[in-house]
């Protein structure tokens, strides 16, 4: 198990060209589960390939615990990896597949079969050990790929490159559950690359949301949901994404097209000092319908969609479009909707970055 540190790590495909990865400084604790989440082309796979040793970064260092592995060969980094499609040795049995890395390390056969039995049981493959790996289902093959990393007790980290891509949608959550269970049992450092927020937020303790080669925020699912550090994170996490409305600040009030919304005074002060383009951000699910006699802000309703377990109201606050997510039993009058923006959920952004 290893603590992975990225020291000022950056990468340009061609010297002087633009950055595939902006120089970054991160520490991923030993035994932690981390996810690299972002749209295609955001550099998440490049970062994974640098950690696995497939690509040597143009600048900065990769540290496993105290050793600098930036230019060490993949073989010597002692990592495990699960790829986008099942990578297994077709002609071997499941047992031989799992035993292969140990046999290459000249471990004695008794130890090998004990380890393989143990990991196979953990992965739910104990029944298929002598079957030919080729005839198994895609998710079983991905478990074999994972197993080849887990059999090695000294594996430093296990990397996942969008492993659920080829899995049938209805089986995905079972494999997610299995990965989660394994991480609970073996305190292993895991790095998981995906463009799907559910996979990232379910799998990882900490998620790095990436865009155009930059890590915009590294935080727990809670932090990403409640305090997105960047407007893109607010948009990308949660569906539908966070509402953003240009605003100005006066005292502890954010003014959006004349509507005064009370925000946290410290945040308002910091926003005023920062200047630049200010935006008020609030999640559709955290906007509350005003109760009887409670004074709220008027949202002119454009459309209401009945999504079964909730209603999604699309309306306008002034001329800013706003999504509001209401419980399915909420009554919406035809003359518009009075809503309340709870102060603790209303966040201020200056030039797309969270203030204070």
């Amino acid at each position, binding site marked *: 198990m290893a603590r992975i540190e990225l020291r000022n790590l950056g990468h340009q495909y061609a010297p002087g060209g633009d950055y595939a990865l902006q120089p970054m400084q991160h520490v991923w604790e030993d035994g932690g589960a981390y996810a690299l989440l972002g749209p295609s082309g955001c550099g998440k796979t490049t970062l994974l390939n640098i950690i696995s*040793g*497939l*690509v*040597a970064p143009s600048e900065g260092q990769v540290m496993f615990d105290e050793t600098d592995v930036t*230019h*060490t*060969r*993949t073989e010597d980094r002692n990592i495990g990896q699960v790829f986008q499609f099942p990578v297994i040795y077709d002609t071997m049995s499941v047992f031989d597949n799992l035993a292969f890395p140990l046999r290459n390390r000249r471990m004695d056969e008794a130890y090998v079969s004990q380890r393989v039995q143990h990991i196979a049981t953990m992965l739910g493959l104990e029944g298929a050990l002598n079957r030919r790996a080729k005839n198994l289902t895609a998710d079983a093959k991905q478990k074999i790929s994972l197993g080849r990393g887990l059999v090695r007790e000294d594996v430093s980290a296990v990397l996942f490159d969008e492993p659920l891509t080829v899995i049938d949608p209805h089986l995905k959550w079972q494999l997610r559950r299995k990965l989660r269970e394994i991480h609970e049992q073996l305190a292993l450092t895991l790095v998981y690359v995906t463009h799907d927020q559910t996979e990232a937020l379910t799998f990882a303790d900490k998620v790095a949301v990436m865009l155009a080669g930059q890590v915009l925020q590294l935080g727990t699912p809670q932090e990403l949901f409640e305090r997105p550090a960047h407007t893109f994170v607010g948009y990308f996490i949660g569906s539908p994404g966070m509402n953003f409305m240009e605003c100005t600040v006066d005292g502890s009030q954010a003014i959006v097209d004349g509507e005064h919304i009370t925000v946290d005074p410290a945040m308002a002060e910091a926003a005023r000092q920062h200047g630049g383009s200010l935006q008020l951000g609030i999640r559709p699910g955290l906007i509350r319908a005003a109760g009887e006699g409670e004074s709220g802000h008027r949202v002119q309703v454009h459309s209401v969609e009945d999504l079964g377990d909730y209603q999604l109201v699309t309306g306008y606050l002034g001329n800013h479009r706003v999504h509001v997510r209401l419980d399915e039993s909420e009554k919406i009058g035809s003359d518009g909707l009075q809503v309340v923006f709870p102060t603790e959920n209303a966040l201020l952004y200056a030039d797309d970055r969270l203030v204070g």
Partner: protein
Amino acid sequence: MSAATNGQRNGVLRNRLLLALYITFTLLPLYWLLNMSLQTNREILGQFTLWPENPTLQAYIGIFTDSTWYMGYVNSLTYVLMNMTISILVALPAAYAFSRYRFIGDKHLFFWLLTNLMAPPAVFLVPYFQLYYTVGLFDTHIAVAMAHCLFNIPLAVWILEGFMRGVPKEVDETAYIDGYSYPAFFIKIFIPMIRSGIGVTLFFLFMFSWVELLLARSLTATNAMPIGTVMTRTSTASGVDWATLSAAGVLTIVPGILVIYFVRNHIAKGFALGRT
């Protein structure tokens, strides 16, 4: 790429050396043919030398001026181009049918084509000879072009079917939905999509018809005699004209070399009958 240790480095060196060795083995006989073609018979039979003392194009000039020689090339090229046209025109719709549809006997027909592709030409010598003789087509270019259809049409169907299978069926359907009639779709949309496949197929049709000797020789006499026959005649006569034979040999390789650069990425798929 990740850093290569020196273990890997002299591994790569060893590989390059072995490869160079094999390429030398391949090129040596070819060099020798070229070497002979640039000498006169007198110099060839004289002092044994590794390269021509005074290189001359006399053998080549001889070929281009002597009608029995250059007509050999013309005849060969004529029936090869005829065969290529017939084969490709006939094979395109058939390959499309095999790649898109199931119909009665489709598997057996596809297998039957494979057996024809593999059939030894010697088996068909006598029947072809008689057939074309009675039909009055003996010693004509079309006779050889038709005879070569025996293996070239199956070859074209198999290779084209391999390339066509790469185009999703949904593309055809989208075109039909748009309103394309079958022929319009085939020519305007489908053919451009398998351009590289057609290119490789034409290359193989050219090659297999150009290299065939047995049928071409036995179905022709004088006015359609291919270059192959012309060459085999000189080498069996006493006092062999080595220089001209070598020059003729070099010229038969030129067409292949000119074209191979354009098909090099798909040549393997062609050889594998479209099965990779």
